[in-house]
């Protein structure tokens, strides 16, 4: 006598729904975690003008120059995978130009007259690098 499958073990519409839900949630988890790692590991320049973030430039993909203006002054900023440099500025102090190239997370270039700040975030963590610079 052929064995009959119990009706309780037969896959139904609810089971398919559960499988779909599990698959979607797993995909969601993966994407969220992947997104977090990308954010943490990729060196990114965050440009703020007058306290407001105006652009994020991922340095891995960046080669080129862009202009940013604030408070009547304009900075020409060079982006390369190795770091960020203010190439030219028409501000009176030129502190931003003198800062040179910033290359790792936590470093920043400040143009106080233009109220422009370029800060690096993300990238590999170096425990010996200073958290804050004083001076």
């Amino acid at each position, binding site marked *: 006598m052929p064995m009959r499958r119990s009706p309780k073990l037969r896959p139904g519409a609810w089971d398919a729904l*559960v499988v779909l839900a599990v698959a979607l949630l*797993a995909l969601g988890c993966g994407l*969220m975690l992947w997104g977090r790692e990308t954010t943490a590991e990729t060196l990114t320049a965050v440009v*703020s003008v007058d306290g407001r973030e105006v652009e994020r430039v991922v340095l891995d993909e960046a080669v080129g120059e862009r202009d940013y203006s604030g408070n009547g002054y304009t900075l020409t900023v060079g982006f390369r995978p190795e770091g960020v440099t203010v190439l030219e500025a028409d501000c*009176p102090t030129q502190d931003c130009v003198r800062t040179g190239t910033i290359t790792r997370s936590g470093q920043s270039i400040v143009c*106080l007259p233009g109220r422009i*700040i370029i800060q690096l975030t993300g990238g590999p963590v170096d425990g010996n690098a200073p*958290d804050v610079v*004083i*001076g």
Partner: protein
Amino acid sequence: MAALMAALTLGLSGCAMTPADPDEAQESIQVIAMDTVMIFSVYGEKSTHAAYAAEDEVRRLEGLLSRTEPDSDVSRLNAAPAGEEVTVSEDTRTLLEAAQLYSKITDGTFDCTLAPVSSAWGFTEDSFRVPSRTELNGLLKNVGWDKFHLSEGQSLAASHDEGVEIDLGGIAKGYVTDAIAKILEENNIPRATISLGGNVLVWGDRPDGTPWRIGIQDPARVDVADGYAGFLNLTNAFAVTSGGYQRYFEEDGKTYHHIIDPATGCPADSGLTSVTVVADWEQGESNGTLCDALSTALFVMGEEKALDFWRTSGSGFELVLVTEDGRVVSTDGLTDCFAPDETSGYAYETVS
């Protein structure tokens, strides 16, 4: 089935939605105020609240203490006729008292009445020039901590002599860091770094449990982003640096920096290129204010007098001095928390 789905949903959601350790939450904000860029990185459950409360406090204090904002306490005081009492806020009064105290104990090398002299050099308005000796001598007649007056008792009145102008810029950022420390304490913030350019407050320790690492800018390599004179490894502490390299101009091949010696009216020529003053945060104390006032005063004094002052003042603060002749001198209270930068080329000395 519904229960199974709910369980699966909750369980899987947990992999991405599990609440992070509250201590790891972080808020980082930039504030442009008091003629500088401030960066607040605050951790903990109430990090966002504390960071923005700190910004509000900065704005409030700037509104009271600024010399350039027309309605500030300091502007009202400066605009008042000589001898007329002006009622100021408790914060302004406290800071004026502190300014007088630090002027007294440093023999006048810190002085908040130097504003007209700084203006003559163009440091206030960024219109630099070299004033004549005659002009400086005239302006110095109105300089001195005993030329402004605070009323006795509970009154919040202040007044000044003829021609005197007050500028609390050399001490106000220190007072602000004291106020921010209070906000961090009230909000049970586990860790934070508060940077006001030359003024830093490190609160708690790093997320990995080690002390915060502060790089002291090398005055000789300001154009190198990683140019340090040394590193301070600190928890719950203030550090303030004053250096001639921070603001200066050149004329006829000579460099003139912004730290004025009240005795001469000219940029201090003390043989130092920077002074860093370090003090622990202590509940109810104003050690941020102390570090700010002393960093300027000790820069003006020069190495020998600054170290004598440190030796006779007790153990409330420590020093890192960078000299023009290529040395970095640190006091022995920093033995465990100061590290040289081996690439700097400086000779390192510890004094006791």
